[in-house]
C-alpha cells in the first residue's frame, strides 16, 4: 500500500528518536509527563502507535499518549497495574456476572452436577428438557466470558495486556464448543491474562494445568497404557518448539507418557492411591494429578532421560521446552507476525529471540525489544486488521467513553467474519496474516458490518436483560480524533468518497470501509 507512504515519511523522523530512547525514567501511572515529550511528537505518529499497541485509537487514548509521551506510555503498557481501573459502568457489568461471583471450581462442579442429574433422568422427554437447560447454562457462561473479554478489550487502560491476552488465548487455543468448555473459558482467560506480559514458562504452567486445555486436547483421557497423544503433539508443535524443530514421533510418545495422569476430577472424591505414590497426588480446584493413571517409567524426551517420578516430570519437560532455542524463535516470530508484519524481517525476529533467551522468556522484554526496533516503526500503519482488530477498533473509535450494554452484536460480526471468540475448532488458533482475512468474500462482509456499525442501529446498547430499554447511541466518528489526526492520514480518494455520503450514517459507513481503516 503505497498510499500511506506520506504518513510514514512523517513517522520516519520520529522513528530514530523513539528507537534511540532509553527507558531511564520509571513508569508512572499519574500521566504527568515532561511537556517536551508531548511537544516533540506529532499526533499522526502517536495515532499509528495507538492503532498498533491498543485495540484501536480513541480520542481519550490519544490524550493519554500525548500527555505521557510515546516512550513512557509504552513502558506503562509493558508494566501495567495489576488491577486496572475500569470505568465504573464496565466494572458493574463484570461484577454482576456469574463467572465473576462464583469461584471456578464451584462453578465447574455445579455444571457437572447439572449434567449428572440430566443423564440420570429416565423419561426421554424430561431428559430432553434437562439437556436443553444444561446447554443453555453452558452457553450463558460462555457468553459471559466473551462479554467480559470484550468489555476489557474495549475499555481497559491496559490495552497491550488485552491484546496479549487475545494473542495467548489464540496461541493456546481452546474451542468452547467441545464438551463443557464454555464453563471453563472464562477462568482460563483470566489466568492467561494474569501472565500475558509475564514469563512464557508461567503461561505453559497455566495452560498445561487448566481443565479447559486438558479437556480440549484430551489429556484428561490420557492414562498409562491408555495413552492419547493429542495434547503432547500440539504442546510441542503449536505451543513451544514449532513443527520443524526436529522432534520425532518418539518424542511425542514420550511426552504423552509424561503427561499421563494430568486431568480433571469433577466427582469431589479422592482416589485411593498406592502408598508409595501418595505424596504425588495433587489437586487444585478441579485439576488433578492422579498417580494411578501415571506411567512411572523413565522417559527419553528430546534426547535426555526424564526420570519417572510423578508430576515433577512435566515441570522438567516444560522447563526444557520453554528454554529450548526453537521456542524462543517460534514464539518471537509469531509475536512479530502479530505486531509487525506478515513476513517479519529475520534480523528482528533474531533480536527478539535473543531477548527471549536472555530474559528467560520474559514476554515484556521481548515486546520491548520489538517496540524499540526500526522495523516496528517502519511497519506502523501497514498491518492489515484481522476481524477482531477491525471490530474492536471500530467500536472503540465510534463509542469512546460510552459503555456498550450488549456484546452479542460484536460476537455475531466476529462469527460472520470467521473469527469468533473461543470458536476456533482446531488448536492452531486463528491466522495472523492478511491473506487469511482480506479475501473478496470477507471484504464484502466487512463493508456490511461497517454499514451496521455506522448506522447506529447495531444493537450494542440494547440490554440483553431488558431489551425494551434500548438506549440508542449514535456513533461519533467525526470527532476530535478525526479532526486532530485521522483526517490528515486519508487519501484524496477516500476524502472524495466521504464527500459523496448523503447522510451521517453513510459517512460513517464509508469511513469504516475505507482502505485506511483496514490497517493498523
Amino acid at each position, binding site marked *: *500500500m503505497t*498510499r500511506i507512504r506520506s504518513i510514514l515519511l512523517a513517522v520516519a523522523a520520529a522513528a530514530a528518536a523513539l528507537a534511540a530512547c532509553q527507558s531511564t525514567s520509571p513508569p508512572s501511572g499519574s500521566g504527568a509527563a515532561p511537556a517536551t515529550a508531548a511537544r516533540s511528537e506529532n499526533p499522526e505518529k502517536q495515532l499509528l502507535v495507538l492503532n498498533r499497541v491498543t485495540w484501536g485509537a480513541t480520542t481519550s487514548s490519544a490524550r493519554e499518549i500525548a500527555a505521557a509521551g510515546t516512550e513512557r506510555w509504552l513502558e506503562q503498557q509493558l508494566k501495567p497495574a495489576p488491577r486496572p481501573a475500569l470505568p465504573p459502568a464496565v466494572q458493574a457489568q463484570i461484577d454482576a456476572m456469574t463467572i465473576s461471583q462464583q469461584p471456578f471450581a464451584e462453578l465447574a462442579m455445579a455444571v457437572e452436577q447439572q449434567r449428572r442429574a440430566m443423564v440420570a433422568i429416565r423419561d426421554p422427554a424430561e431428559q430432553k428438557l434437562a439437556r436443553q437447560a444444561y446447554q443453555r447454562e453452558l452457553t450463558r457462561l460462555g457468553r459471559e466470558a466473551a462479554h467480559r473479554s470484550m468489555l476489557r478489550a474495549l475499555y481497559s487502560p491496559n490495552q497491550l495486556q488485552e491484546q496479549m491476552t487475545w494473542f495467548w488465548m489464540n496461541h493456546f487455543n481452546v474451542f468452547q464448543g467441545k464438551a463443557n468448555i464454555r464453563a471453563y473459558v472464562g477462568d482460563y482467560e483470566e489466568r492467561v491474562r494474569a501472565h500475558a506480559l509475564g514469563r512464557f514458562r508461567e503461561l505453559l504452567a497455566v495452560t498445561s494445568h487448566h481443565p479447559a486445555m486438558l479437556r480440549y486436547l*484430551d489429556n484428561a*483421557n*490420557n*492414562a498409562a*497404557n*491408555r*495413552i*492419547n*497423544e*493429542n495434547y503432547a*503433539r500440539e504442546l510441542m*508443535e*503449536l505451543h513451544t518448539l514449532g*513443527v520443524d524443530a526436529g522432534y520425532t*514421533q518418539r518424542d*511425542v510418545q514420550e511426552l504423552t507418557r509424561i503427561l499421563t495422569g494430568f486431568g480433571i476430577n469433577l466427582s469431589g472424591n479422592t482416589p485411593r492411591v498406592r502408598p508409595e505414590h501418595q505424596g504425588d497426588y495433587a489437586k487444585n480446584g478441579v485439576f488433578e494429578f492422579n498417580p494411578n493413571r501415571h506411567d512411572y517409567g523413565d522417559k527419553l524426551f528430546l534426547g535426555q532421560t526424564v526420570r519417572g517420578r510423578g508430576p515433577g516430570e512435566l515441570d522438567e519437560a516444560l522447563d526444557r521446552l520453554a528454554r529450548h532455542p526453537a521456542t524462543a524463535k517460534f514464539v518471537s516470530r509469531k509475536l512479530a507476525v502479530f505486531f509487525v508484519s506478515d513476513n517479519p524481517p529475520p534480523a528482528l525476529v533474531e533480536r527478539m529471540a535473543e531477548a527471549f533467551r536472555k530474559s528467560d522468556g520474559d514476554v515484556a522484554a521481548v515486546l520491548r525489544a520489538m517496540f524499540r526496533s526500526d522495523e516496528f516503526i517502519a511497519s506502523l500503519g501497514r498491518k492489515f486488521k484481522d476481524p477482531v482488530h477491525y471490530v474492536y477498533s471500530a467500536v472503540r473509535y465510534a463509542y469512546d467513553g460510552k459503555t456498550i450494554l450488549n456484546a452479542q452484536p460484536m460476537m455475531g460480526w466476529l*462469527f*460472520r*467474519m*470467521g473469527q469468533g471468540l473461543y470458536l476456533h*475448532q*482446531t488448536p*492452531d488458533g486463528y*491466522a495472523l496474516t492478511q*491473506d*487469511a*482475512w*482480506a*479475501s*473478496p*468474500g*470477507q*471484504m*464484502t462482509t466487512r*463493508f*456490511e458490518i461497517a*454499514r*451496521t456499525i455506522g448506522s447506529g442501529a447495531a444493537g450494542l446498547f440494547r440490554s440483553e436483560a431488558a431489551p425494551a430499554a434500548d438506549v440508542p447511541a449514535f456513533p461519533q466518528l467525526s470527532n476530535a480524533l478525526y479532526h486532530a489526526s485521522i483526517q490528515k492520514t486519508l*487519501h484524496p*480518494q*477516500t476524502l*472524495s*468518497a466521504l464527500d*459523496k*455520503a448523503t447522510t451521517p450514517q*453513510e459517512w460513517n*459507513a*464509508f469511513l469504516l*470501509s*475505507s*482502505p485506511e481503516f*483496514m490497517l493498523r
Partner: protein
Amino acid sequence: MNRRDFLKLSAAAPLAASSFSLHAAPAGNPRLLVVFMRGAYDAANLLVPHGSSFYYEARPNIAIPRPGAAANSALALDATWALHPSLRASLLPLYEKGQLAFVPFAGTDNLSRSHFETQDSIELGQGQDRARSYQSGFMNRLASVLAKRGQPIAFTGQVPVAFRGDVQVPNVALRQLARPSVDARQSAVIAEMYRNTALAGPVMEGFSTRDGVIQTLAEDMDAASRNALTARGFELEARRIARLMRDRYNLAFVDIGGWDTHVGQGGAEGYLANRLEELGRGVAAYADEMGGAWNDTVVVVISEFGRTFRENGNRGTDHGHGSAYWVLGGGVRGGRIAGEQVALTPATLNQSRDYPVLNEYRALFAGLFGRMYGLDAAQTERVFAGVKPKDFGLV
C-alpha cells in the same frame, strides 16, 4: 491382462506418448469440486478392510461389524473392502451406479503428522524436496493453466491455501449467506476508494461475486424454499454449491472440519458415523442438484492424512499417515477400489502404526486433470512440478 495391470502399464508408459493417446481434449464443460475433510478422518472406518482379521483385532471397540444382515454391519463392496453403514442411503447407490470410486492408501510423503503442516503441504501441492511458496496452491495453478476455461471459486470463509496464487479467486461462505445491505451506489463509492490500492482486486471481485451469487440463489434464500427448510448441515450448502456450479463456476473448493477423533469416535454409530452420514448426504444432494451437469462433474474428497490403525486408549484414533480418497461423478468409472493396494497385516503397516501411502496424491490429481482437461505435459508440469501423472482410469 486384467484392468489394474493394464493401468499400471499405461501409467508406466512415457508421458509424452500417453498424453496424446489418452488425453484427447474432452468435450463439454468439465467441473471439479474438491472437498477437504480437515482433521484427518479415519479412513479405515469409512472404507472398512473387512477382509483383514487384523482390523478387528486392532479395533476391539470401534470396528464396524463384518458385512451381514444386521443394520449396523459394513456394506460389502468387494471381498476386501466395505463401506460404513451410515452411507447406505447416500454413497452406496452412487457406488452401485458406478459413479463412485475409492482410492485407499492415498496421501502425501509428508510424515510430520501435523494437521496444519500437512494440510498446507497438500494444498500447495509442491514437492517436499524444494523450498515452499505459500503463494501458490495447486488449484490456483490449475486455474491458471485452464485460463479462460476455468471459473474458480472457494465456498469457504477464507480463500484456502489451495487457491492462493496469481489468479484472483473469489470466495463465498454459503452457510451464512445474507442479502446485502450495502446497495449498488454505496458499493460503487467504496470501490472507488480502493481504486489503485493493493486491495482493489479483492474488493471488486467481492462485489461482483456477491451479486452473481445472490442472483443465482435468490430463490433458495427465500424462507419458502424447500431446501432451506429441509436440508440439515452440509446438505443445504452442498445444494447451493451445485446450483452455482451448474450455472457459473466450474472449479471449486469446500472444506468440512471435525474429523480429529482422538476420543470416543464411535463405530457403526456415534460421532464419526454422524459426520460421515452428514457428508455423504451432502455429496448425494450435490449430485442430485447438478442434474444433467453431473455427467461432466468430478468430486474428489480428500483429507490430510489417516489415523492410527489400532484404536487408542480412549476408543478413538491418533494421527496416522495414509488416507482413502473418494472420486465421484456422473462420468467417473467407479464401482471399484482404485490404485495400488496392500493387504493389511501388522507387517504392512507404516511404522507399525498406520496406512502406508502407495498412491501419492499429486500423481493421482495429475492423472485426473490430464483426463478431464486434456492437459499436455508442460501444463501438467506447471500444476505439479516434477510429478509423473498416474492414470487410474477414473474418468
